[in-house]
């Protein structure tokens, strides 16, 4: 039976998330946008503690399935949290201490023993981060073109190569007892099959953060370039099996996109909603009504813009919830995940850009957060697969074409 209402339990969690977003994130949002590369440690510690409490499993990177009792609507819950916390601040959300994409890779490709060994840390001690290193300077969305190599030398793997765009890379590699999951090839000739994930512990000799990017937005979140020079790691840091035949590893991580794309979509929606809520309140203060139901030929330009922003956001959310819900139901959602990501990324780019425009000189000023939301929003149109990549995936699925037939 079709229904669009979140269950009460989840709704009450959303209220908690909102309190965090409103009480802990918004107040420091502008400050850490301006003080790029500085870290809100107090916020980190608060979230680190909070992430042990109920409702923040996703943050803690804890995986109930591993413990045999999958939480109901885990993905939908994560999506709801992402929207709410990114309503607060997308950059801060991305920099909350947790296993992150590194943890996701461990969950997707690791053995039970490895999951235990590498993820336990996120339930104890000081704040920690996990990162995933896959993109390279020479390859954008083409994750199969990995040139970073791993060769066996006795009872170690030796990693060589350079990775860029590692979210929380610096926090994971240097600033905490975290780790970086780096994707490297055991045998270039084997193509994707030869690409495997390796866990590199923080401060492992040979791993260096060479650059932390200056960005358009989400400035508080560190985006690192990491080089690996003869970086030696124990054999059992290769996640899963070293068997080249078994394509497992890479397939698995590709599959994680089905879970992460709705989250990125939800991040966009959170930022878009922040802008929409602000504009709604602003217009109300100005006594400018939004007259739903009226003949479209009688609307003002501002009314129509606002309604359009509102419905675009709603559409993005519905597509996103559907993609997450399908995953929770154990259904394949690659098509729906890419639909949600493509639509949300674009819609919120336009919504935030329009919000800045509607506020005129005020919208352009850094005295308000609107301009920041426009800068922050854009990342969701780019990472976890650009809009174009996701459109390509949607096209392949609806046309039933392989990546060779439609490239």
């Amino acid at each position, binding site marked *: *039976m*079709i*229904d*669009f*209402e*979140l*269950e009460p339990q989840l709704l009450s969690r959303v209220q908690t998330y909102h309190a965090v977003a409103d009480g802990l994130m918004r107040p420091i949002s502008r400050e850490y946008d301006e003080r790029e590369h500085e870290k809100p440690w107090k916020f980190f510690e608060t979230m680190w503690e909070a992430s042990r409490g109920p409702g923040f499993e996703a943050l803690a990177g804890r995986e109930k399935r591993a413990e045999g009792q999958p939480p109901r*609507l885990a993905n*939908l819950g994560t999506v709801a949290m992402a929207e709410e916390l990114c309503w607060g601040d997308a950059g801060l959300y991305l920099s909350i201490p947790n296993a992150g994409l590194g943890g996701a890779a461990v969950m997707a490709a690791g053995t039970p023993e490895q999951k235990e060994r590498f993820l336990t840390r996120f339930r104890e001690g000081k704040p920690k981060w996990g990162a995933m290193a896959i993109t390279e300077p020479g390859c954008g969305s083409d994750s199969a073109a990995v040139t970073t190599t791993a060769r066996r030398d006795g009872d170690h793997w030796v990693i060589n190569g350079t990775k860029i765009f590692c979210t929380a890379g610096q926090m994971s590699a240097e600033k905490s007892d975290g780790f970086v999951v780096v994707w490297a090839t055991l045998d270039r000739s084997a193509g994707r099959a030869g690409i495997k994930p390796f866990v590199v512990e923080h401060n492992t000799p040979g791993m260096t953060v060479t650059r932390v990017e200056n960005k358009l937005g989400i400035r508080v979140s560190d985006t690192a370039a990491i080089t690996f020079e003869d970086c030696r790691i124990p054999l059992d840091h290769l996640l899963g099996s070293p068997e080249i035949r078994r394509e497992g590893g890479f397939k698995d991580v590709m599959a994680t996109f089905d879970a992460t794309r709705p989250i990125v979509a939800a991040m966009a929606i959170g930022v878009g909603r922040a802008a929409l809520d602000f504009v709604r309140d602003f217009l109300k203060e100005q006594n400018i009504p939004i007259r*739903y*139901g*009226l*003949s*479209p*030929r*009688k609307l003002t330009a501002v009314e129509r813009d606002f*309604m359009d922003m*509102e*419905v675009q956001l*709603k*559409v993005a959310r*519905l*597509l996103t*919830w*559907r993609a997450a*819900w*399908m995953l929770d139901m154990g259904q394949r959602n690659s098509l*729906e995940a890419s*639909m949600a990501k*493509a*639509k949300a990324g674009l819609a919120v780019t336009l919504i935030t850009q329009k919000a800045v425009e509607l506020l005129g000189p005020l919208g352009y000023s850094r005295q308000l957060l609107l301009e920041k939301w426009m800068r922050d929003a854009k990342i969701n149109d780019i990472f976890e697969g650009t809009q174009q990549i996701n*459109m*390509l995936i*949607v*096209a*392949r699925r*609806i*046309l039933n*074409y392989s990546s060779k*037939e*439609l490239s």
Partner: protein
Amino acid sequence: MINFELSDEQKMIRDTVAAFARDRVRPAARPADETGAIPAALVKMAGELGLTRSAIPERFGGYGDERSAISGAVVAEELAFGDLAIAMHILAPRLLAFPILEMGTDDQRARFLPRFGRDDFTPAAAAVMEPRFDFDLMALDTLWRDDSGGYVLNGAKCVVPLAAEADTILVYAGSDKGAGMADVQGFLVPRGTAGIAISEREKNMGIKALATYQITFKDCRLSREARLGGEQGANFTRLTSESRVALAAMAVGVARAAFEYARDYAKERKAFGVPIATKQAVAFMLADMAIEIDAMRLLVWEAASRLDKHEDALKETYLARNYAAASVLKVTDNAVQVLGGHGYIREHPVEMFLRNARGFSSFEGLATV
């Protein structure tokens, strides 16, 4: 509890109507558009689906199924996938039956519902739209006023379906006193009533197979019993919401029809030695169409679920209608573009989908759930 899946019963309804739309309606669509006539046999067959009858109480000959806006949206989408004009014709009885079913007096229900408790088609009509560019449901020009023991109607309506065949037309009019939807009332007007003039059949760009008319009311006198819902009247805001969600659902059907035709064509059609669907420019157009269709449907279902919960849905149905009207135009226009020159000739249906789609930004009250 959140759920994106239709119930088994709804799936059954969908599949039944979808099969009918695919096998019976679509093949009749082009000739109906060219001749303006819908085969009686097809209408009869549709009657046997009991799409209106199902909601009529058993004591009036119906099946007494509970009405659901979501089920109604599913039916509207699937039929419109076959053909929009034929879908509107087939579902026209709902325009009279459902408002009476939901808001009519016992007497009105007893008088009017039995004719819809049968399988054979009973033409019925509702008069909502008015011939002005900024026609607005919140400020109707057709007005009713109290008059010694009855009501008097004055004004003009347009795009009234089946007005020439229907023996009763449900006319919506604003009050000469108040403004806004709250004051709009419905009136059950027998076709012969003095003061009514029904025009020649209208000619529109699309939905050509649907017979529509203009009607003018000049001091048209009606009895007390003519008012839908009697003294306490009807809830026009809800009726409007039900109508908009139905129209938006039909837009989804038209968009899907165009998308599927263009998709199949693009996989077949070769240029420069490869199917044109393998070109990103075409593939991305199709991907965008697919996303818009899912987006439209989700908006429709979300608005419909509010109606099924008897929540106010004016805003949701309005936004869904406007979004659908814009998207269906874009999708059908893209479909013509994908077919290129072949999309411009009437040998293929996409140009008809485009003409039908362009109507949604103006349509009001032409369907309901």
